[in-house]
């Protein structure tokens, strides 16, 4: 029986870590250098290489989406036209929405870090369907380029929600962009399906369901949503594309159709999609808080069950986006109550994370700095979500900047913070190098302060009554908009710093060794960067649960709750 794997991951770094990370073991070269031809990268089925290719594209789309965000903020500086005309602005906020949601937020953490770390965490060689994994990358790129082609040839101005009857009657080019997004939906389904089957069938011996790392639980819940929700919006996109061409008027009031029915079907996907974006970040943060406070997770099962709870109940709450859209009061009540339940699951997670730090040993590194920002933003963003779900307040806040601030608090506050945390946390695992810790903390301060300065004023704008998607606004809103634009430039500057020191570390960073954070997570058992088939020799058995930092001499371990 080979030595129980947990001891090797223990503090005592085995000798072979002293080598330079790359030439660690010539018989099993790291996946980065195992085949350097272009074809070996483009046609690889290695989940780690596919993850890196996803990372490249996702960062590129994040940059494009971010540029659109800055353009919007600059336009908002003055009540009248500032740097663009009305139609360009309408296109800009639509593209910002479309690119950020479909091309960055939804695939970001699952496709990059899910792909890279999931097999490592399960002790498996690869995901269940490696070829499907590569196909999902190319489907994603095909859809992205079709959508971008549509955006460049006229672009649509319907907002990312493309409500009918406007989306079926606008003269801007809606069809290619929506059909591109429809294709991207398949990549999302393929990734979700792949992960579910991997988690069900590829767990190494010794890993039972309740010894799975919490990032795997979060990915499982996310994949279930991806598989079950995406087809509905795929159908909607095909119908709207069809209506652009044939005008058959399924949701057209003149033909007796009902635009509110379109909203029902749209939000049936789009609310669970919000949980696709945020659940993986909850998973990453569970790993980060356990590693950097060197403590087992407080209420492991509570967090695991709440991930599944969010995924399941998240399907029954879509109506809270339609309180003032003509939907009946009865439906508003039903959707409002169920939304309160979903809020509770997030509250459980937050309390258990704070509980994890209790009696821990906190090492304040950059990922942990992002965890602090994440914690505050999730509490604040989540509570404002509950506030908006109390129906009566939503009558005032719906479609104003309050809602914009709320979902940015969750999307940027939770998911982008988690995305940055996971880049820093798994940077050594992916590239075998370490980034500069000082610059990391500096950038984190910029990001957290810049984020607050951008979106707190937008909450106040919402209270003050400024509607969203407004190219020109009454003068009284200008002061807050200027503050928000200032905050946005601070945030952008933070991202610039990150990109500088991370690219520097990529090339000149000092080798990180196998386990720089001394973490007991399963993914740190294999080498960093790991060889092509993740494990050298026979498959390791995982006798202990993840993140077990108990002193072996002291009291024996009660069973996990």
């Amino acid at each position, binding site marked *: 029986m080979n030595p129980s794997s947990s001891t090797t991951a223990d503090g005592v770094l085995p000798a072979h870590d002293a080598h330079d990370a790359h030439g660690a073991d010539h018989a099993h070269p790291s996946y980065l250098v195992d085949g350097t031809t272009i074809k070996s990268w483009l046609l690889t089925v290695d989940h780690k290489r596919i993850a890196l290719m996803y990372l490249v594209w996702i960062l590129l789309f994040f940059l494009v989406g971010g540029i659109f965000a800055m353009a919007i903020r600059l336009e908002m500086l003055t009540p009248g036209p500032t740097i663009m005309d009305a139609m360009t602005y309408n296109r800009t906020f639509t593209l910002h929405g479309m690119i950020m949601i479909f091309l960055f937020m939804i695939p970001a953490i699952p496709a990059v870090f899910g792909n890279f770390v999931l097999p490592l965490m399960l002790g498996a060689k690869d995901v269940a369907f490696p070829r499907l994994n590569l196909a999902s990358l190319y489907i994603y790129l095909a859809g992205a380029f079709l959508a971008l082609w549509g955006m460049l040839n006229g672009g649509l101005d319907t907002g990312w929600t493309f409500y009918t009857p406007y989306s079926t009657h606008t003269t801007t080019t809606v069809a290619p962009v929506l059909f591109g997004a429809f294709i991207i939906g398949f990549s999302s389904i393929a990734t979700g399906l792949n992960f579910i089957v991997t988690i069900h069938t590829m767990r190494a011996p010794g890993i039972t369901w309740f010894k799975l790392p919490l990032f795997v639980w979060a990915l499982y819940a996310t994949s279930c949503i991806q598989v079950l929700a995406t087809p509905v919006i795929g159908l909607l996109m095909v119908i709207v594309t069809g209506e652009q061409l044939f005008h058959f008027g399924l949701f057209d*009031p003149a033909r*007796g159709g009902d635009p509110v029915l379109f909203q*029902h*079907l749209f939000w049936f996907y789009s609310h669970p999609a919000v949980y696709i974006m945020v659940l993986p970040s909850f998973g990453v943060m569970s790993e980060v808080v356990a590693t950097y406070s060197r403590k087992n997770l407080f209420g492991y099962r509570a967090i695991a069950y709440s991930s599944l709870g969010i995924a399941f109940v998240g399907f029954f709450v879509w109506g809270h986006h339609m309180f003032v859209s003509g939907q*009946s009061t009865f*439906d508003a009540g039903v959707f409002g109550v169920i939304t309160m339940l979903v809020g509770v699951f997030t509250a459980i997670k937050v309390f258990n994370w704070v509980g994890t730090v209790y009696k821990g040993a906190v090492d304040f590194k950059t990922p942990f700095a992002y965890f602090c920002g994440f914690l505050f933003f999730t509490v604040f963003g989540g509570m404002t979500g509950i506030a908006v779900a109390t129906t009566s307040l939503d009558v005032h806040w719906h479609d104003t900047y309050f809602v914009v601030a709320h979902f940015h608090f969750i999307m940027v506050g939770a998911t982008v913070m988690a995305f940055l945390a996971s880049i820093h946390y798994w940077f050594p695992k992916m590239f075998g190098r370490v980034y500069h810790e000082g610059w990391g903390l500096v950038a984190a301060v910029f990001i957290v302060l810049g984020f607050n300065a951008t979106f707190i004023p937008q909450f106040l704008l919402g209270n003050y009554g400024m509607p969203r998607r407004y190219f020109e606004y009454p003068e009284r809103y200008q002061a807050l908009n200027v503050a928000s634009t200032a905050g946005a430039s601070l945030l952008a500057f933070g991202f610039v710093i990150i990109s500088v020191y991370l690219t520097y570390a990529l090339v000149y960073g000092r080798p990180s060794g196998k386990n720089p954070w001394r973490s007991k997570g399963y993914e740190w058992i294999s080498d960093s960067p790991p060889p092509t088939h993740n494990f050298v020799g026979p498959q390791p058995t995982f006798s202990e649960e993840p993140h077990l930092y108990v002193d072996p001499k002291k009291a024996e371990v009660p069973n996990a709750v």
Partner: protein
Amino acid sequence: MSVANESSQEAHNMQEHHSSVRYWVVWGVLLALTGLTVWTGSIHIPQFGLALALLIASAKGGLVLLFFMHLVDHKGANRLVMAVSVLFVLMMLIMPMADLATRYRPANPAGSHLSDLPDLEFIEGKKSTHNRAGGGAHGSGQAAPGGQQAPSPSHP
């Protein structure tokens, strides 16, 4: 339940080999049910016609799922997948219909029996160009002009 025994149990189920009679029986039942639903459908039972048709369709669907697609042999996760997706379909159906049922009447699709039309008369361009056989009472007594019943004046 570790994954090993789930798949070996499933493989074991799939291995025991029934004769092909089972499929022919299921086929026969399906045809009988089709005949039944066509017959009951064509006599248009007022209230329960839809419920009966759905019942028969679900029965046929269940048969196809269990025997033709071997869901009866497959274990755990596969059944969960089917159950959850059917539950979501039902939820997706119930809430919008409840919405239309309990909505402020004139906010329902105009011309449908869920909304009384008179106050929609003002919508310029949204003329109700055809008489409302069963629709809501038509406020202004005057039949909507245009369409096939406009009196075609003899040429002056």
